[in-house]
Protein backbone atom coordinates (compact mmCIF):
# COMPACT_ATOMS: atom_id res chain seq x y z
CA UNK A 1 0.00 0.00 0.00
CA UNK A 2 2.82 2.36 0.86
CA UNK A 3 4.61 1.63 -2.39
CA UNK A 4 1.82 2.94 -4.63
CA UNK A 5 2.98 5.67 -6.98
CA UNK A 6 1.02 8.94 -6.68
CA UNK A 7 -0.43 8.18 -10.09
CA UNK A 8 -1.54 4.71 -9.08
CA UNK A 9 -3.02 6.04 -5.89
CA UNK A 10 -5.00 8.69 -7.78
CA UNK A 11 -6.32 6.14 -10.24
CA UNK A 12 -7.31 3.72 -7.50
CA UNK A 13 -9.17 6.54 -5.75
CA UNK A 14 -11.00 7.25 -8.97
CA UNK A 15 -11.93 3.61 -9.53
CA UNK A 16 -13.13 3.13 -5.94
CA UNK A 17 -15.26 6.24 -6.40
CA UNK A 18 -16.76 4.87 -9.61
CA UNK A 19 -17.44 1.51 -7.97
CA UNK A 20 -19.05 3.19 -4.96
CA UNK A 21 -21.13 5.56 -7.06
CA UNK A 22 -22.56 2.79 -9.25
CA UNK A 23 -23.66 0.89 -6.16
CA UNK A 24 -24.94 3.91 -4.29
CA UNK A 25 -27.08 5.12 -7.17
CA UNK A 26 -28.42 1.65 -7.89
CA UNK A 27 -29.27 1.20 -4.19
CA UNK A 28 -31.14 4.48 -4.36
CA UNK A 29 -33.16 3.38 -7.39
CA UNK A 30 -33.91 -0.03 -5.91
CA UNK A 31 -34.80 1.59 -2.61
CA UNK A 32 -37.61 3.44 -4.38
CA UNK A 33 -39.36 0.09 -4.85
CA UNK A 34 -39.46 -0.88 -1.19
CA UNK A 35 -43.13 -0.82 -0.25
CA UNK A 36 -44.25 -0.73 -3.89
CA UNK A 37 -43.17 -4.05 -5.40
CA UNK A 38 -45.66 -6.23 -7.33
CA UNK A 39 -45.58 -8.93 -4.64
CA UNK A 40 -44.72 -8.67 -0.95
CA UNK A 41 -41.91 -11.21 -1.34
CA UNK A 42 -40.22 -8.87 -3.80
CA UNK A 43 -40.42 -5.92 -1.42
CA UNK A 44 -38.23 -8.07 0.76
CA UNK A 45 -35.93 -9.17 -2.07
CA UNK A 46 -35.48 -5.62 -3.36
CA UNK A 47 -34.72 -4.38 0.13
CA UNK A 48 -32.08 -7.09 0.38
CA UNK A 49 -30.50 -6.11 -2.90
CA UNK A 50 -30.53 -2.42 -2.02
CA UNK A 51 -28.91 -3.09 1.35
CA UNK A 52 -26.16 -5.19 -0.19
CA UNK A 53 -25.53 -2.50 -2.79
CA UNK A 54 -25.39 0.19 -0.17
CA UNK A 55 -23.02 -2.02 1.79
CA UNK A 56 -20.79 -2.38 -1.25
CA UNK A 57 -20.84 1.39 -1.76
CA UNK A 58 -19.68 1.83 1.82
CA UNK A 59 -16.92 -0.71 1.35
CA UNK A 60 -15.59 1.05 -1.73
CA UNK A 61 -15.78 4.43 -0.04
CA UNK A 62 -13.85 3.01 2.88
CA UNK A 63 -11.20 1.68 0.52
CA UNK A 64 -10.98 5.16 -0.92
CA UNK A 65 -10.81 6.65 2.58
CA UNK A 66 -7.78 4.48 3.33
CA UNK A 67 -6.03 6.19 0.46
CA UNK A 68 -7.08 9.80 0.92
CA UNK A 69 -8.70 10.11 4.34
CA UNK A 70 -12.03 11.19 2.82
CA UNK A 71 -15.33 10.85 4.68
CA UNK A 72 -17.78 8.39 3.08
CA UNK A 73 -20.88 10.29 4.18
CA UNK A 74 -19.50 13.60 2.97
CA UNK A 75 -18.82 12.01 -0.40
CA UNK A 76 -22.25 10.42 -0.68
CA UNK A 77 -24.27 13.39 0.50
CA UNK A 78 -22.06 16.37 -0.22
CA UNK A 79 -20.97 16.01 -3.84
CA UNK A 80 -22.73 17.60 -6.80
CA UNK A 81 -23.71 15.63 -9.89
CA UNK A 82 -20.56 16.63 -11.79
CA UNK A 83 -18.38 15.06 -9.11
CA UNK A 84 -20.04 11.65 -9.31
CA UNK A 85 -18.51 8.86 -11.41
CA UNK A 86 -21.43 6.47 -11.79
CA UNK A 87 -22.48 5.13 -15.18
CA UNK A 88 -25.68 6.49 -16.70
CA UNK A 89 -27.28 3.04 -16.74
CA UNK A 90 -27.66 3.30 -12.98
CA UNK A 91 -28.99 6.86 -13.06
CA UNK A 92 -32.13 6.21 -15.09
CA UNK A 93 -35.41 6.25 -13.15
CA UNK A 94 -36.59 2.90 -11.86
CA UNK A 95 -39.12 2.53 -14.69
CA UNK A 96 -41.32 -0.54 -14.56
CA UNK A 97 -40.44 -3.90 -13.04
CA UNK A 98 -38.89 -5.09 -16.31
CA UNK A 99 -36.67 -2.02 -16.49
CA UNK A 100 -35.53 -2.48 -12.90
CA UNK A 101 -34.81 -6.18 -13.18
CA UNK A 102 -33.09 -5.95 -16.54
CA UNK A 103 -30.78 -3.24 -15.27
CA UNK A 104 -30.12 -5.41 -12.26
CA UNK A 105 -29.25 -8.34 -14.46
CA UNK A 106 -26.91 -6.40 -16.74
CA UNK A 107 -25.20 -4.79 -13.79
CA UNK A 108 -24.97 -7.97 -11.70
CA UNK A 109 -23.35 -9.75 -14.64
CA UNK A 110 -20.86 -6.90 -15.00
CA UNK A 111 -20.15 -6.83 -11.29
CA UNK A 112 -19.59 -10.57 -11.22
CA UNK A 113 -16.96 -10.54 -13.94
CA UNK A 114 -15.32 -7.45 -12.46
CA UNK A 115 -15.13 -8.88 -8.95
CA UNK A 116 -13.91 -12.26 -10.20
CA UNK A 117 -11.05 -10.53 -11.97
CA UNK A 118 -10.37 -8.23 -9.02
CA UNK A 119 -9.58 -11.23 -6.82
CA UNK A 120 -6.28 -11.37 -8.67
CA UNK A 121 -5.36 -7.75 -7.94
CA UNK A 122 -1.97 -7.09 -6.43
CA UNK A 123 -3.65 -4.55 -4.11
CA UNK A 124 -4.65 -6.61 -1.11
CA UNK A 125 -7.55 -4.50 0.23
CA UNK A 126 -9.22 -4.73 -3.17
CA UNK A 127 -8.62 -8.46 -3.41
CA UNK A 128 -10.20 -9.06 -0.04
CA UNK A 129 -13.20 -6.82 -0.66
CA UNK A 130 -13.84 -8.48 -4.02
CA UNK A 131 -13.70 -11.95 -2.51
CA UNK A 132 -16.26 -11.04 0.09
CA UNK A 133 -18.68 -9.26 -2.24
CA UNK A 134 -18.56 -11.95 -4.85
CA UNK A 135 -20.47 -14.31 -2.60
CA UNK A 136 -23.39 -11.88 -2.33
CA UNK A 137 -23.18 -10.98 -5.96
CA UNK A 138 -23.69 -14.55 -7.15
CA UNK A 139 -26.98 -14.62 -5.32
CA UNK A 140 -28.00 -11.30 -6.88
CA UNK A 141 -27.19 -12.53 -10.35
CA UNK A 142 -29.18 -15.69 -9.79
CA UNK A 143 -32.18 -13.67 -8.68
CA UNK A 144 -32.09 -11.18 -11.54
CA UNK A 145 -31.31 -13.84 -14.16
CA UNK A 146 -34.33 -15.83 -12.98
CA UNK A 147 -36.54 -12.77 -13.28
CA UNK A 148 -35.36 -12.14 -16.83
CA UNK A 149 -36.34 -15.70 -17.59
CA UNK A 150 -39.78 -15.22 -16.04
CA UNK A 151 -40.33 -11.93 -17.85
CA UNK A 152 -38.85 -12.95 -21.19
CA UNK A 153 -40.72 -16.26 -21.23
CA UNK A 154 -43.83 -15.12 -19.32
CA UNK A 155 -46.50 -13.26 -21.29
CA UNK A 156 -46.33 -11.20 -24.48
CA UNK A 157 -46.69 -8.10 -22.35
CA UNK A 158 -43.79 -9.01 -20.08
CA UNK A 159 -41.58 -9.86 -23.05
CA UNK A 160 -42.47 -6.60 -24.79
CA UNK A 161 -41.61 -4.54 -21.73
CA UNK A 162 -38.34 -6.36 -21.14
CA UNK A 163 -37.35 -5.98 -24.78
CA UNK A 164 -38.14 -2.23 -24.65
CA UNK A 165 -35.92 -1.92 -21.58
CA UNK A 166 -33.16 -3.78 -23.38
CA UNK A 167 -33.26 -1.39 -26.35
CA UNK A 168 -32.47 1.49 -24.03
CA UNK A 169 -30.13 -0.24 -21.61
CA UNK A 170 -27.89 -2.26 -23.89
CA UNK A 171 -26.17 0.76 -25.52
CA UNK A 172 -25.91 2.43 -22.11
CA UNK A 173 -24.09 -0.60 -20.72
CA UNK A 174 -21.04 0.15 -22.87
CA UNK A 175 -20.17 2.98 -20.49
CA UNK A 176 -19.44 0.44 -17.75
CA UNK A 177 -16.38 -0.68 -19.72
CA UNK A 178 -14.89 2.74 -20.47
CA UNK A 179 -11.61 2.96 -18.56
CA UNK A 180 -10.98 5.86 -16.22
CA UNK A 181 -7.94 8.05 -16.83
CA UNK A 182 -4.85 5.99 -15.96
CA UNK A 183 -6.79 2.77 -15.53
CA UNK A 184 -5.26 0.93 -18.48
CA UNK A 185 -1.81 1.38 -16.95
CA UNK A 186 -2.99 0.00 -13.60
CA UNK A 187 -4.54 -2.96 -15.35
CA UNK A 188 -1.23 -3.66 -17.06
CA UNK A 189 0.49 -3.54 -13.67
CA UNK A 190 -2.00 -6.05 -12.22
CA UNK A 191 -3.58 -3.61 -9.77
CA UNK A 192 -6.98 -3.45 -11.44
CA UNK A 193 -8.98 -5.71 -13.78
CA UNK A 194 -8.57 -5.04 -17.48
CA UNK A 195 -11.95 -3.73 -18.65
CA UNK A 196 -11.26 -4.48 -22.28
CA UNK A 197 -10.77 -8.15 -21.40
CA UNK A 198 -13.90 -8.23 -19.24
CA UNK A 199 -16.25 -6.83 -21.80
CA UNK A 200 -16.32 -9.89 -24.10
CA UNK A 201 -16.84 -12.15 -21.10
CA UNK A 202 -19.74 -10.04 -19.89
CA UNK A 203 -21.16 -9.80 -23.38
CA UNK A 204 -20.98 -13.52 -23.99
CA UNK A 205 -22.77 -14.45 -20.79
CA UNK A 206 -25.46 -11.77 -21.02
CA UNK A 207 -26.14 -12.42 -24.72
CA UNK A 208 -26.50 -16.08 -24.09
CA UNK A 209 -28.99 -15.68 -21.27
CA UNK A 210 -30.97 -12.91 -22.97
CA UNK A 211 -31.22 -15.01 -26.12
CA UNK A 212 -32.37 -18.05 -24.15
CA UNK A 213 -35.07 -15.85 -22.62
CA UNK A 214 -36.44 -14.91 -26.03
CA UNK A 215 -34.97 -11.41 -26.08
CA UNK A 216 -33.03 -9.94 -28.98
CA UNK A 217 -29.97 -7.90 -28.24
CA UNK A 218 -29.83 -4.62 -30.20
CA UNK A 219 -26.73 -3.29 -31.94
CA UNK A 220 -24.11 -1.28 -30.08
CA UNK A 221 -23.87 2.42 -30.88
CA UNK A 222 -20.82 3.77 -32.68
CA UNK A 223 -17.64 3.82 -30.57
CA UNK A 224 -17.68 7.62 -30.35
CA UNK A 225 -21.16 7.52 -28.82
CA UNK A 226 -19.82 5.88 -25.69
CA UNK A 227 -19.37 8.40 -22.95
CA UNK A 228 -16.78 8.57 -20.25
CA UNK A 229 -17.86 8.38 -16.65
CA UNK A 230 -17.79 12.12 -16.13
CA UNK A 231 -20.71 12.46 -18.53
CA UNK A 232 -24.05 12.09 -16.83
CA UNK A 233 -27.71 12.04 -17.68
CA UNK A 234 -30.04 14.74 -16.34
CA UNK A 235 -31.55 12.05 -14.11
CA UNK A 236 -28.56 12.26 -11.79
CA UNK A 237 -29.07 15.77 -10.40
CA UNK A 238 -32.74 14.96 -9.93
CA UNK A 239 -31.87 11.83 -7.98
CA UNK A 240 -29.29 13.68 -5.90
CA UNK A 241 -31.71 16.47 -5.02
CA UNK A 242 -33.89 13.87 -3.35
CA UNK A 243 -31.08 11.83 -1.86
CA UNK A 244 -29.09 14.70 -0.41
CA UNK A 245 -31.87 17.13 0.54
CA UNK A 246 -32.16 16.29 4.23
CA UNK A 247 -28.42 15.94 4.76
CA UNK A 248 -27.74 19.31 3.16
CA UNK A 249 -30.64 21.22 4.71
CA UNK A 250 -28.82 21.66 8.03
CA UNK A 251 -25.19 22.44 7.28
CA UNK A 252 -24.33 22.79 10.95
CA UNK A 253 -25.33 19.24 11.75
CA UNK A 254 -22.37 17.12 12.82
CA UNK A 255 -24.29 13.88 13.27
CA UNK A 256 -27.30 12.50 11.47
Amino acid at each position, binding site marked *: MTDLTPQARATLILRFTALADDELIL*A*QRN*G*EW*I*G*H*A*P*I*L*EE*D*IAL*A*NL*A*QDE*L*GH*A*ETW*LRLRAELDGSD*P*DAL*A*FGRDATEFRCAQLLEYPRG*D*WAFTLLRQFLFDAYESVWLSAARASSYRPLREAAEKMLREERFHLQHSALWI*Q*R*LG*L*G*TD*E*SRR*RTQAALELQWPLSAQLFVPLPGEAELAAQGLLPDLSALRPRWEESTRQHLGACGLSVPAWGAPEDVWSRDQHSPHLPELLA*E*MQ*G*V*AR*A*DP*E*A*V*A*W
Partner: protein
Amino acid sequence: MSMTTAQDPRLDPRLEAFEARIARGEKIEPGDWMPDEYRRQLIRMISQHAHSEYVGMLPEGEWITRAPSLRRKMILMAKVQDEAGHGQYLYHAAETLGATREDMMDALLSGRAKYSSIFNYPSLTWADVGMIGWLVDGAAIKNQTMLAGCSYGPYSRAMVRICSEETFHHKQGKEMILTYAAGTPAQRRMAQDALNRWWWPSLMMLGPHDQDSPNTAVLSRWGIKLKSNDEVRQEFINEHVPELLEAGLSIPDPDLRFDEASGNWIHGPINWDEFWAVVKGNGPMNRARLEARRFAHEDGAWVREALAAYGARSQAQAAD
Protein backbone atom coordinates in the same frame (compact mmCIF):
# COMPACT_ATOMS: atom_id res chain seq x y z
CA MET B 1 -82.11 -17.70 2.31
CA SER B 2 -80.51 -20.07 4.79
CA MET B 3 -82.89 -21.60 7.29
CA THR B 4 -80.42 -23.67 9.30
CA THR B 5 -80.54 -22.92 12.96
CA ALA B 6 -77.05 -23.05 14.39
CA GLN B 7 -76.72 -24.76 17.69
CA ASP B 8 -75.84 -22.30 20.45
CA PRO B 9 -72.06 -22.61 20.49
CA ARG B 10 -72.00 -22.17 24.23
CA LEU B 11 -73.66 -25.62 24.45
CA ASP B 12 -70.98 -27.39 22.42
CA PRO B 13 -69.47 -30.02 24.72
CA ARG B 14 -66.01 -29.35 23.27
CA LEU B 15 -66.12 -25.78 24.52
CA GLU B 16 -65.46 -26.72 28.10
CA ALA B 17 -62.35 -28.71 27.19
CA PHE B 18 -61.15 -25.87 24.98
CA GLU B 19 -61.54 -23.30 27.72
CA ALA B 20 -59.83 -25.62 30.17
CA ARG B 21 -56.82 -25.91 27.87
CA ILE B 22 -56.60 -22.14 27.70
CA ALA B 23 -56.92 -21.89 31.45
CA ARG B 24 -53.98 -24.30 31.80
CA GLY B 25 -51.94 -22.02 29.52
CA GLU B 26 -51.82 -24.49 26.63
CA LYS B 27 -51.57 -23.14 23.09
CA ILE B 28 -54.35 -23.82 20.59
CA GLU B 29 -52.90 -25.06 17.29
CA PRO B 30 -54.30 -24.91 13.74
CA GLY B 31 -55.77 -28.44 13.63
CA ASP B 32 -57.39 -28.18 17.05
CA TRP B 33 -61.09 -27.68 17.59
CA MET B 34 -61.98 -24.07 18.38
CA PRO B 35 -65.22 -22.10 18.64
CA ASP B 36 -66.19 -20.26 15.44
CA GLU B 37 -66.13 -16.98 17.29
CA TYR B 38 -62.55 -17.62 18.46
CA ARG B 39 -61.55 -18.25 14.86
CA ARG B 40 -63.45 -15.20 13.62
CA GLN B 41 -61.92 -12.88 16.20
CA LEU B 42 -58.42 -14.16 15.50
CA ILE B 43 -58.76 -13.79 11.74
CA ARG B 44 -60.01 -10.24 12.26
CA MET B 45 -57.15 -9.32 14.57
CA ILE B 46 -54.34 -11.09 12.74
CA SER B 47 -55.33 -9.85 9.29
CA GLN B 48 -55.70 -6.30 10.59
CA HIS B 49 -52.30 -6.68 12.13
CA ALA B 50 -50.87 -7.98 8.84
CA HIS B 51 -52.43 -5.10 6.92
CA SER B 52 -50.94 -2.69 9.41
CA GLU B 53 -47.46 -4.01 8.70
CA TYR B 54 -48.10 -3.88 4.97
CA VAL B 55 -49.50 -0.34 4.94
CA GLY B 56 -46.99 0.60 7.62
CA MET B 57 -44.18 0.29 5.10
CA LEU B 58 -45.37 3.49 3.45
CA PRO B 59 -44.92 6.35 5.94
CA GLU B 60 -41.33 5.39 6.64
CA GLY B 61 -40.57 3.89 3.23
CA GLU B 62 -41.04 7.34 1.68
CA TRP B 63 -37.90 8.44 3.51
CA ILE B 64 -35.57 5.67 2.37
CA THR B 65 -34.51 7.77 -0.59
CA ARG B 66 -33.92 10.80 1.66
CA ALA B 67 -32.11 9.33 4.67
CA PRO B 68 -29.21 11.69 5.44
CA SER B 69 -26.39 9.21 6.06
CA LEU B 70 -25.30 5.83 4.75
CA ARG B 71 -25.89 4.24 8.14
CA ARG B 72 -29.41 5.66 8.54
CA LYS B 73 -30.33 4.64 5.03
CA MET B 74 -29.18 1.10 5.70
CA ILE B 75 -31.04 0.91 9.00
CA LEU B 76 -34.22 2.26 7.47
CA MET B 77 -34.16 -0.15 4.53
CA ALA B 78 -33.67 -3.03 6.95
CA LYS B 79 -36.52 -1.78 9.07
CA VAL B 80 -39.03 -1.45 6.24
CA GLN B 81 -37.90 -4.85 5.04
CA ASP B 82 -38.68 -6.24 8.48
CA GLU B 83 -42.16 -4.78 8.24
CA ALA B 84 -42.68 -6.58 4.96
CA GLY B 85 -41.46 -9.74 6.68
CA HIS B 86 -43.86 -9.20 9.58
CA GLY B 87 -46.69 -8.79 7.09
CA GLN B 88 -45.67 -12.13 5.61
CA TYR B 89 -45.62 -14.04 8.95
CA LEU B 90 -48.94 -12.58 9.91
CA TYR B 91 -50.67 -13.34 6.62
CA HIS B 92 -49.38 -16.90 7.07
CA ALA B 93 -50.72 -17.02 10.64
CA ALA B 94 -54.16 -15.91 9.41
CA GLU B 95 -53.98 -18.55 6.67
CA THR B 96 -53.65 -21.26 9.33
CA LEU B 97 -57.17 -20.27 10.36
CA GLY B 98 -58.57 -20.66 6.85
CA ALA B 99 -58.30 -17.07 5.57
CA THR B 100 -56.79 -16.70 2.09
CA ARG B 101 -54.24 -14.11 1.08
CA GLU B 102 -56.38 -13.09 -1.90
CA ASP B 103 -59.44 -12.44 0.26
CA MET B 104 -57.43 -10.50 2.80
CA MET B 105 -55.75 -8.42 0.09
CA ASP B 106 -59.07 -7.77 -1.54
CA ALA B 107 -60.58 -6.67 1.76
CA LEU B 108 -57.68 -4.27 2.27
CA LEU B 109 -57.68 -2.78 -1.23
CA SER B 110 -61.44 -2.37 -1.36
CA GLY B 111 -61.32 -0.47 1.94
CA ARG B 112 -63.34 -3.09 3.88
CA ALA B 113 -60.50 -4.19 6.14
CA LYS B 114 -59.04 -1.97 8.81
CA TYR B 115 -55.42 -1.33 9.65
CA SER B 116 -53.82 0.60 12.46
CA SER B 117 -55.00 4.21 12.60
CA ILE B 118 -51.41 5.35 13.11
CA PHE B 119 -50.45 4.77 9.48
CA ASN B 120 -52.93 7.36 8.33
CA TYR B 121 -50.74 10.09 9.73
CA PRO B 122 -48.21 11.45 7.25
CA SER B 123 -44.44 11.57 7.79
CA LEU B 124 -43.54 15.18 7.19
CA THR B 125 -39.89 15.44 8.22
CA TRP B 126 -36.96 13.11 8.58
CA ALA B 127 -37.30 13.19 12.37
CA ASP B 128 -40.68 11.49 11.98
CA VAL B 129 -38.81 8.33 11.07
CA GLY B 130 -37.04 8.38 14.44
CA MET B 131 -40.18 9.31 16.33
CA ILE B 132 -42.15 6.49 14.68
CA GLY B 133 -39.44 4.08 15.78
CA TRP B 134 -39.43 5.34 19.33
CA LEU B 135 -43.11 5.96 19.99
CA VAL B 136 -45.08 3.93 17.47
CA ASP B 137 -42.87 0.87 17.71
CA GLY B 138 -42.68 1.44 21.46
CA ALA B 139 -46.47 1.31 21.69
CA ALA B 140 -46.63 -1.65 19.31
CA ILE B 141 -44.15 -3.60 21.44
CA LYS B 142 -46.28 -3.18 24.55
CA ASN B 143 -49.22 -4.59 22.66
CA GLN B 144 -47.25 -7.34 20.96
CA THR B 145 -45.56 -8.47 24.18
CA MET B 146 -49.01 -9.00 25.57
CA LEU B 147 -50.12 -10.84 22.41
CA ALA B 148 -47.01 -13.05 22.55
CA GLY B 149 -48.71 -14.70 25.50
CA CYS B 150 -51.95 -15.26 23.61
CA SER B 151 -53.61 -18.64 23.37
CA TYR B 152 -53.32 -19.21 19.62
CA GLY B 153 -49.95 -20.83 18.90
CA PRO B 154 -49.12 -19.40 15.44
CA TYR B 155 -50.07 -15.87 16.46
CA SER B 156 -48.16 -16.13 19.71
CA ARG B 157 -45.02 -17.40 17.95
CA ALA B 158 -45.26 -14.71 15.25
CA MET B 159 -45.47 -12.13 18.03
CA VAL B 160 -42.36 -13.44 19.77
CA ARG B 161 -40.38 -13.17 16.58
CA ILE B 162 -41.80 -9.78 15.63
CA CYS B 163 -41.25 -8.37 19.11
CA SER B 164 -37.58 -9.10 19.11
CA GLU B 165 -37.15 -7.25 15.82
CA GLU B 166 -39.35 -4.39 16.96
CA THR B 167 -37.23 -3.97 20.05
CA PHE B 168 -34.33 -3.32 17.75
CA HIS B 169 -36.31 -0.73 15.76
CA HIS B 170 -37.43 0.92 18.98
CA LYS B 171 -33.83 1.29 20.14
CA GLN B 172 -32.74 2.73 16.81
CA GLY B 173 -35.58 5.24 16.79
CA LYS B 174 -34.78 6.34 20.30
CA GLU B 175 -31.09 6.67 19.55
CA MET B 176 -31.91 8.80 16.51
CA ILE B 177 -34.18 11.19 18.42
CA LEU B 178 -31.69 11.45 21.30
CA THR B 179 -29.04 12.44 18.77
CA TYR B 180 -31.24 15.16 17.30
CA ALA B 181 -32.50 16.35 20.67
CA ALA B 182 -28.84 16.98 21.52
CA GLY B 183 -28.01 18.29 18.04
CA THR B 184 -28.20 21.60 16.21
CA PRO B 185 -31.11 23.99 16.82
CA ALA B 186 -32.72 22.81 13.59
CA GLN B 187 -32.39 19.17 14.60
CA ARG B 188 -33.83 19.89 18.04
CA ARG B 189 -36.76 21.76 16.51
CA MET B 190 -37.39 18.89 14.14
CA ALA B 191 -37.37 16.35 16.98
CA GLN B 192 -39.76 18.41 19.11
CA ASP B 193 -42.10 19.00 16.19
CA ALA B 194 -42.18 15.27 15.47
CA LEU B 195 -43.04 14.58 19.10
CA ASN B 196 -45.84 17.16 18.95
CA ARG B 197 -47.40 15.39 16.00
CA TRP B 198 -46.86 11.77 17.01
CA TRP B 199 -47.54 11.79 20.76
CA TRP B 200 -51.33 11.70 20.70
CA PRO B 201 -51.67 9.33 17.74
CA SER B 202 -49.32 6.93 19.58
CA LEU B 203 -51.59 6.94 22.63
CA MET B 204 -54.64 6.48 20.44
CA MET B 205 -53.24 3.60 18.43
CA LEU B 206 -53.49 1.42 21.54
CA GLY B 207 -57.26 1.55 21.11
CA PRO B 208 -60.28 3.06 22.84
CA HIS B 209 -60.77 3.15 26.59
CA ASP B 210 -61.87 -0.16 28.12
CA GLN B 211 -65.49 0.93 28.48
CA ASP B 212 -65.63 1.70 24.72
CA SER B 213 -63.87 -1.45 23.53
CA PRO B 214 -66.56 -3.95 22.51
CA ASN B 215 -64.37 -6.99 21.93
CA THR B 216 -62.31 -6.92 25.09
CA ALA B 217 -64.43 -9.27 27.25
CA VAL B 218 -64.56 -12.29 24.95
CA LEU B 219 -60.94 -11.78 23.82
CA SER B 220 -59.83 -11.80 27.40
CA ARG B 221 -61.81 -14.95 28.32
CA TRP B 222 -60.17 -16.91 25.54
CA GLY B 223 -56.71 -15.71 26.34
CA ILE B 224 -56.29 -13.65 23.17
CA LYS B 225 -55.97 -10.31 24.91
CA LEU B 226 -54.33 -10.62 28.29
CA LYS B 227 -54.47 -6.92 29.16
CA SER B 228 -56.90 -4.10 28.48
CA ASN B 229 -56.12 -1.19 26.14
CA ASP B 230 -55.85 1.18 29.09
CA GLU B 231 -53.41 -1.09 30.92
CA VAL B 232 -51.18 -1.35 27.85
CA ARG B 233 -51.39 2.40 27.28
CA GLN B 234 -50.40 3.07 30.88
CA GLU B 235 -47.33 0.84 30.52
CA PHE B 236 -46.35 2.71 27.38
CA ILE B 237 -46.73 6.11 29.02
CA ASN B 238 -44.88 5.12 32.18
CA GLU B 239 -41.91 3.94 30.18
CA HIS B 240 -41.73 6.74 27.62
CA VAL B 241 -42.58 9.92 29.52
CA PRO B 242 -39.47 9.93 31.73
CA GLU B 243 -37.21 9.15 28.76
CA LEU B 244 -38.70 11.88 26.58
CA LEU B 245 -38.39 14.42 29.39
CA GLU B 246 -34.83 13.38 30.06
CA ALA B 247 -34.05 13.98 26.38
CA GLY B 248 -35.08 17.59 26.95
CA LEU B 249 -38.24 17.31 24.90
CA SER B 250 -41.61 18.55 26.08
CA ILE B 251 -44.71 16.43 25.81
CA PRO B 252 -47.69 18.17 24.18
CA ASP B 253 -50.13 17.40 27.01
CA PRO B 254 -50.63 20.25 29.49
CA ASP B 255 -52.52 17.94 31.88
CA LEU B 256 -49.83 15.28 32.08
CA ARG B 257 -48.84 14.63 35.72
CA PHE B 258 -47.14 12.02 37.84
CA ASP B 259 -49.39 10.33 40.36
CA GLU B 260 -47.32 9.47 43.43
CA ALA B 261 -49.90 7.07 44.82
CA SER B 262 -50.11 4.74 41.81
CA GLY B 263 -46.68 5.50 40.41
CA ASN B 264 -48.35 6.24 37.06
CA TRP B 265 -48.05 9.14 34.66
CA ILE B 266 -51.63 10.34 34.10
CA HIS B 267 -52.43 11.77 30.66
CA GLY B 268 -55.01 14.44 29.81
CA PRO B 269 -58.18 13.77 27.79
CA ILE B 270 -57.72 12.13 24.38
CA ASN B 271 -59.48 13.56 21.32
CA TRP B 272 -61.39 10.44 20.35
CA ASP B 273 -63.28 12.25 17.60
CA GLU B 274 -60.04 12.43 15.70
CA PHE B 275 -59.32 8.79 16.42
CA TRP B 276 -62.67 7.59 15.13
CA ALA B 277 -62.40 9.77 12.05
CA VAL B 278 -59.03 8.22 11.27
CA VAL B 279 -60.20 4.67 12.04
CA LYS B 280 -63.31 5.04 9.94
CA GLY B 281 -61.02 5.77 7.10
CA ASN B 282 -62.75 8.53 5.18
CA GLY B 283 -60.00 11.10 5.54
CA PRO B 284 -57.77 12.19 2.69
CA MET B 285 -54.73 10.38 4.07
CA ASN B 286 -56.50 7.03 4.32
CA ARG B 287 -57.45 7.43 0.71
CA ALA B 288 -53.86 8.24 -0.23
CA ARG B 289 -52.51 5.16 1.56
CA LEU B 290 -55.00 2.87 -0.10
CA GLU B 291 -54.37 4.53 -3.46
CA ALA B 292 -50.67 3.81 -3.06
CA ARG B 293 -51.36 0.17 -2.21
CA ARG B 294 -53.87 -0.18 -5.04
CA PHE B 295 -51.52 1.49 -7.47
CA ALA B 296 -48.68 -0.88 -6.58
CA HIS B 297 -51.10 -3.79 -6.85
CA GLU B 298 -52.51 -2.79 -10.25
CA ASP B 299 -49.16 -1.68 -11.56
CA GLY B 300 -47.78 -5.11 -10.67
CA ALA B 301 -50.65 -7.08 -12.23
CA TRP B 302 -48.74 -7.77 -15.43
CA VAL B 303 -45.78 -9.02 -13.39
CA ARG B 304 -47.93 -11.46 -11.46
CA GLU B 305 -49.48 -12.64 -14.73
CA ALA B 306 -46.03 -13.20 -16.22
CA LEU B 307 -45.02 -15.09 -13.11
CA ALA B 308 -48.08 -17.34 -13.39
CA ALA B 309 -47.56 -17.91 -17.12
CA TYR B 310 -43.91 -18.74 -16.57
CA GLY B 311 -44.80 -21.08 -13.73
CA ALA B 312 -47.38 -22.90 -15.86
CA ARG B 313 -44.89 -23.21 -18.69
CA SER B 314 -42.17 -24.61 -16.43
CA GLN B 315 -44.58 -27.14 -14.97
CA ALA B 316 -45.71 -28.22 -18.42
CA GLN B 317 -42.09 -28.68 -19.47
CA ALA B 318 -41.30 -30.65 -16.33
CA ALA B 319 -44.26 -32.91 -17.06
CA ASP B 320 -43.03 -33.63 -20.60
